[in-house]
């Protein structure tokens, strides 16, 4: 069942809580801690379009409360806007783990630009070396190029980076 909080929609899919829309002052993220199962809170962030400054504050409080309560926060399919916040504001990273995230790619052959899902676990070693994993273009099949500075975009994966 969907629950709407201002511009944010929450949907539970099994053990995963899917967040869609904007995280802002109306999102009330702190009580998401109560949705943890067996000490784990799994958030799917693929459809989060942006987080404003008050949403950032709420997010940091939620992460801090999870740490205090001994709950591990797992982030899946983290959208590009959320990645930008994780990179800009170190405090938003908390102690949560990022399992997968979206990253910008561009195809030199056909010009297509796409936000593609990257498996942060399977590509852990390459990502810590700031190497973007190769991705095929969904339109022409050619290899796409990572479309940002790796040192900037992947810094959220490095502690204190």
């Amino acid at each position, binding site marked *: 069942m969907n629950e709407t909080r201002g511009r944010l929609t929450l949907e539970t899919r099994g053990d995963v809580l899917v967040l869609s829309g904007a995280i802002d*002052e109306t999102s009330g993220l702190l009580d998401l801690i109560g949705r943890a199962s067996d000490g784990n809170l799994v958030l799917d962030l693929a459809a989060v379009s942006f987080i404003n*400054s008050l949403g950032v*504050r709420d997010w940091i409080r939620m992460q801090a409360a999870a740490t205090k309560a001994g709950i591990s926060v797992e982030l899946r399919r983290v959208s590009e*806007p959320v990645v930008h916040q994780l990179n800009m504001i170190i405090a938003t990273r908390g102690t949560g783990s990022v399992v997968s995230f979206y990253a*910008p790619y561009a195809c030199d052959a056909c010009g297509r*630009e796409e936000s593609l899902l990257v498996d942060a676990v399977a590509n852990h070693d390459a990502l810590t070396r700031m190497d973007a994993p190769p991705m095929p273009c969904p339109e022409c099949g050619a290899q796409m190029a990572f479309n940002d500075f790796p040192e900037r*975009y992947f810094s959220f994966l490095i502690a204190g980076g």
Partner: protein
Amino acid sequence: MRSPSILIVHSDRKTQRVVQRILGVTGYPIDIADDLEQGIRLVQHLSPILVVLDGAAVGSPHAPAFIAAVAQRGTEACMTLLGAPSAPLPTILGIGAITNLLVHPMPVLAEELTITAQKLIRGDLFGAEKYLLWGAQLHEATVVRASQRAELVGRISEHVRAVGQSARVASMAMLVTDELISNAVHNAPVDGSGEHYRKDLARDIEIELDAKHQVRLRWGFDARYVAIEVTDPWGSLDRDTILASLARNDVRDSGGGAGMGIALAYRSCDHLVFNLAPGKRTEIIALIDVRYPPSERMPASSYNVFVERATGVEP
């Protein structure tokens, strides 16, 4: 004492020539120094209205003495050019005296440099039109209640997508619009003693905005920029607050104020322009550069802080 001039301090001859040609159209004499030490010597005999400084020189041990010497001469503004991705942005922001920063692959930055110089020299500050190509249309909405922010943010996102821009650009536009409107509605209003009487109000509480509190939002596009302009009728934001906000690297977990929203807006666009008329109005313009893919963009953003004076602009 010589008549007012423009002083360029840059070690690269090609950049010197390009900047000289660009600023020469202002009609002011142009003086050039190869480094800060030479700049310090020169400035003793000059009355520069504008100093253009190589960003890479800001980390030099001579930088504080140069900036102090320039300030002593009553210079209108100190503008720094950043061409290299590794240039010392935190150092520049930390100085708190660099009121204009233009980040661009050198030596091509004619438009931004010209606009900045002309605004400073003419004292004609306001309007996003100055940053868009001729013929670009600006759309306008008046914020008459606080809850309108969400609706307008959604409208801008749809509009940005409708003109063919990426979800990434739309997301940047949404964040910037949200922060700037929130700042204008909640942080800008001040009472007679300068107290920001709405800054601690919960943002999710509805506020009807009377004529005195209404905020103007304008946005437009051309082949270079998505431009978002937000104006409040208070003019309560000051230069030092802005420079301190831009320098913020992280956010606190509590407290309100304009700092965090401005810091996020700055990091979410390519160029943030503050046009300040103290006690009258504050206009903030965010420019999102749509010319380049993320991998070719500069990893830092430009900013300008212009303050209206009775007879021109101050740094």
